[in-house]
């Protein structure tokens, strides 16, 4: 006989109650794990995307709110609105490099994919792209695709794709860069403008400045040269993190409620168990169990609930994150989650944190019932039938 065996025998004597209490804990911990794994995965991904934006500043149409500005990062296709004379005015400012582009949607195999109209050579230099296979050739009948697109749609050099009813040959495939750029089809800007009826307008102008220390001066210069808004990559990042943060807050609230419910579940289960086992507690007392021993046995039961529920919760949580991540990826705020590895499917750190948390919270929930048990006098418990 050992104390663990005693704890275990007590735990499992009421199968259904054991299972229900465990499920409650598992749900609570699963929501915590989902929160943690989605949270860390998302934030890391957003930072990565913003890093490789390759621009310090982005010129957007006048009067855009933060929500609209974020589409620069997410690649949502918002109406093209910056005319070519504005682009030229910005290009005339010294000490910066400005690259206009148009974002649209194309459909491959019935799935929407981002299509970006670019000035081929300037964009390649700006982004430092390298070609993995084929040639970098963009014109009226050729496009280039990112590595992610080529993988997803099994596109090889020389294959044809149909965009807005017109056939284009894939001339080349870019080397993987690890962000959204991998997940787009690139077309010559003029061709794209004609195909999508965008006139001479573009969606954004990406700007890289020579002297980062004078970023504010450049913003002022651009705004006096043209009627546009300018955001810095840092501002963009902050806006996105704020929005993702608010999504995270909602998740946190759900997790907190789930954990709290699990705690009450444990407390309730233990109170019921102690009421039912008054006489057994008396027997233990008569056999020489001190208050400390009775307390430990009952807190031990709660802790084991925490451990087992925690393990089930961790498994369920990671499974949920794994299956849910692709759907969350459809959401425009979180559209960064393009690549599969962006959501951590299993993370040792999170696992340990979640288990420690589960055991701790469960033990705490068991403290009050265990104190009640320890305060029972042996006679009180034996006396009545």
């Amino acid at each position: 006989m050992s104390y663990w065996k005693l704890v275990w025998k007590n735990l499992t004597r009421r199968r259904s109650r054991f299972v229900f209490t465990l499920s409650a804990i598992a749900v609570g911990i699963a929501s915590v794990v989902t929160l943690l794994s989605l949270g860390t995965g998302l934030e890391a991904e957003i930072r990565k995307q913003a890093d490789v934006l390759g621009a310090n500043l982005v010129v957007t149409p006048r009067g855009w709110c933060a929500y609209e500005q974020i589409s620069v990062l997410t690649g949502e296709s918002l109406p093209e609105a910056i005319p070519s004379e504005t682009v030229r005015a910005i290009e005339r400012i010294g000490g910066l490099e400005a690259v206009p582009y148009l974002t649209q949607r194309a459909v491959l195999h019935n799935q929407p994919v981002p299509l970006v109209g670019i000035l081929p050579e300037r964009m390649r230099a700006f982004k430092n792209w390298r070609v993995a296979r084929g040639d970098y050739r963009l014109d009226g009948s050729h496009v280039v695709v990112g590595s992610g697109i080529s993988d997803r749609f099994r596109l090889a050099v020389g294959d044809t794709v149909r965009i807005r009813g017109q056939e284009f040959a894939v001339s080349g495939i870019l080397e993987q860069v690890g962000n959204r750029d991998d997940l787009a089809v690139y077309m010559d800007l003029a061709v794209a403008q004609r195909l999508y009826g965008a006139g001479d307008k573009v969606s954004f102008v990406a700007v890289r400045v020579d002297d980062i220390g004078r970023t504010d001066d450049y913003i002022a210069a651009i705004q006096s040269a043209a009627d546009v808004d300018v955001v810095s990559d840092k501002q963009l990042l902050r806006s996105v993190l704020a929005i993702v943060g608010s999504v995270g807050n909602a998740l946190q609230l759900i997790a907190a409620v789930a954990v709290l419910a699990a705690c009450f579940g444990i407390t309730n289960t233990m109170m019921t168990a102690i009421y039912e086992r008054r006489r057994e507690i008396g027997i233990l007392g008569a056999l020489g169990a001190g208050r400390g021993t009775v307390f430990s046995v009952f807190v031990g039961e709660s802790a084991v609930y925490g451990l087992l529920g925690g393990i089930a919760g961790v498994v369920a949580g990671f499974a949920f994150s794994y299956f849910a991540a692709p759907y969350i990826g459809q959401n425009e705020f979180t559209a960064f989650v393009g690549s599969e590895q962006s959501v951590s499917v299993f993370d040792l750190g999170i696992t340990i944190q979640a288990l420690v948390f589960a055991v701790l919270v469960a033990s705490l929930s068991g403290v009050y019932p265990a104190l009640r048990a320890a305060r029972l006098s042996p006679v009180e418990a034996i006396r009545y039938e």
Partner: protein
Amino acid sequence: MSDPILRAEGLTKVYDGGYRTVALEDVTLEIPRGSLTCIMGPSGHGKSTLLHLLGGLDRPTSGRVYLDGEDLTAASPRRLAGIRSRRLGFVFQFFNLLPMLTALENVQTAMLLAGVPRREQEARARELLRLVGLEDKLHAKPNQLSGGQRQRVAIARALANDPDLLLMDEPTGNLDSRSEEDLLEQVRAVHARGKTVVIVTHSDTVAALAERTVTIRDGRVVPG
């Protein structure tokens, strides 16, 4: 009666839960070492109360209990738990065993609480259960045992830590005369091995076994 193992002096127990009951009043008695003592008396007159006080399960309103000269009424709860575990064995009238444990595990639990290492527990528990004639019921749960068998498991468990003093509250209370005989046989054997035994009982058969009988009436010891 030179060296009593247990001595009670002026024990009074008053229950005051809204309405006052004097369960025990000024009880003074000695239990000689190695004796077999019966406590008898009408129902509700304080026998169980006395037994609980003698075993340090409860505290008196006033008066003292000495076990080998040590004042139990002044001992800390921790000290009392230790004494119950190592020096005393209890058998109660109805509810004795932990229902989710087998006979063997019930006996082992008493050893666990006394800090007996796991390796030693099982062999000793088997031996004790063999002594009470239950070697074929080691792995039976209490609800698979008869009332008499349960009481025998309780006796085996009370003996688990080789106590000096065995306190039994109506151990044969709900047994037929055949089972009562069996159980008394066990008690006699325990007593023969030098243990001090105190039995609360209504049964004349049990009383016939005793060397001494203490009669309690209205919470007092009846002289004679």
